């Protein structure tokens, strides 16, 4: 199949698809008129029944918590898969190409940049932790906070030596973080099951509204997800960087 036929095929397919979309979207209620009962019921019950002020977090980690379990494992598996695919490769290529590495060396970051990076690292990490902890109160949560934490770890890499990065974030620790984070979610589910509730039923005391520990199992799961996401994203970045990393050390 050459480019032209493919383009023609696409044009035909796209026309059909556009037609389907047009029909479908014409039938949708106009923007802003949504009156579905599901969301409104959720909105009405999260504060009184869960002492949680962020309805989105409540949906994610409690009401539809099982979706998030699946989602978290998608992340987990993808990271595993990416690590698997990339690691094999760097094992082979590094040996052959190590001698070329010197002339491609990245310029060392300037002192100013390094200082700025160091200054930024701590606030980034703090901000990440803040976002995680307040997940059930204000926008944010384990996922967003986890990525911010991972980017904090990355800052260490940007400003420092690669060796520093490795020292700051040892591989084994990242692996453990990822696995423990991933394990927390089903563990909570099984624990609630063992305690006589339904899978992922929120059976812990709900705590005071607006406090960091409110929401029963939500903060636990939230922290687990944060750990998993932070570990996962850092791991992916590490594998992508690994080639460079090893060349530099030789």
């Amino acid at each position, binding site marked *: 199949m050459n480019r032209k036929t493919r383009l023609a095929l696409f044009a035909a397919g796209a026309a059909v698809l556009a037609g389907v979309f047009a*029909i479908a979207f014409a039938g949708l209620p106009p923007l802003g008129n949504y009156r579905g009962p599901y969301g409104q019921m959720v909105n009405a019950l999260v504060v009184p029944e869960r002492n949680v002020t962020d309805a989105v977090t409540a949906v994610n980690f409690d009401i539809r918590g099982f979706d998030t379990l699946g989602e978290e*494992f998608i992340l987990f*598996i993808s990271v595993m898969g990416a690590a698997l695919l990339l690691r094999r490769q760097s094992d082979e290529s590094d040996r052959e190409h190590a001698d070329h590495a010197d002339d491609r060396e990245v310029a060392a970051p300037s002192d100013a940049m390094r200082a700025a990076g160091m200054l930024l690292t701590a606030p980034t990490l703090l901000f990440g932790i803040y976002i995680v902890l307040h997940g059930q109160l204000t926008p944010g949560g384990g996922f967003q906070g986890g990525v911010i934490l991972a980017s904090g770890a990355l800052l260490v890499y940007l400003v420092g030596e690669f060796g520093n990065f490795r020292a700051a974030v040892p591989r084994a620790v990242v*692996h*453990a973080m990822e696995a423990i984070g991933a394990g927390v979610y*089903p563990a909570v589910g099984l624990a609630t099951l063992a305690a006589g509730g339904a*899978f992922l*039923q929120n059976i812990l005391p709900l705590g005071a509204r607006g406090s960091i520990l409110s929401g029963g199992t939500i903060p636990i799961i939230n922290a687990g997800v944060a750990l998993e996401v932070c570990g996962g994203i850092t791991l992916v970045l590490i594998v992508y960087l690994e080639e460079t990393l090893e060349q530099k050390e030789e």
Partner: protein
Amino acid sequence: MNCESCGTDDVTPMAPLPVAIPLITAAILAGLRSVLPRRVSFWIALAAAAATLACCVDLLHASRGGTLVYWFGNWQPRHGVALAISFAVDPIGAGLATLVSLLAITGMIFASRYFDTVGTLFHTLLLAFMGAMCGFALTGDIFNLFVFFELMSAAAYALAGYKTEDPAPVQGALNFAITNTIGAYFVLVGIGLIYAHTGALNMAQIARTLDAEPASPLVIAAFTLIVSGFLVKAAIVPFHYWLADAHTVAPTPVCLLFSGVMVELGLYAAARVYWSIFAGTLGHASALRAMIVGAGCATALVGAGMCWSERNLKRLLAFLR
């Protein structure tokens, strides 16, 4: 199936286990990867798979009397509106889950002989794959269906590209990944449309809403999108081009799972979505049913045959060695 959302009946607490056991074991294995010897991790994985199989058989047994409904987090529906995700366990779904775990066990045992370098990571991926397929077969929630579809796919991409020494698998896995991802987003657009129209994600509830009214163009469009998305996964004829790539290149134990179940699951999803949601509102059931079943049988046969002939020799050799 009509009683899906009035299901306050005492349902076996087994229902979430076919998903929870493989997933938590996968996480544990990944965490202890550097500590555990390969043999030990193999036995742990096998034990988890066997436990899953036992749960599935139990579910199959329990679901003979009718569809079992399990509400996650014990969120019972209120005023007829389903709040949480439910598992709707019917004999077909439970049977598929049983088949999945059986094949996963076979694949695991087989893999321990087939690969020289089968590591813990392989077991992790396989367990997650298995858990996702069980969840996919059992769920009664349409967005949850999508989530497990994606989890299943992610594990499948990684498994298809597992043998990275050869060039062919990687390319096959890539084609497989791209095609399936596009398919998944067809499904998601369809789900979005359905949610906009009915305000529900629970399949039984959607069906009740749709039954009460004549089929609108929107519903038909959503149906088309969802079903064509799942048919990409099932590799039904217009979408079959990824199949040869992925299946013939995947390592044999994985191939077993791919052609044995995953394709059927795509088909099952299409059929399930049709029967539990659209059957009432889109009338022409028998023709469509015949079409889906016929195409499905043909595809399954072709896929299994292809896989078998391709790998037969290698398989025999592996066992003899």
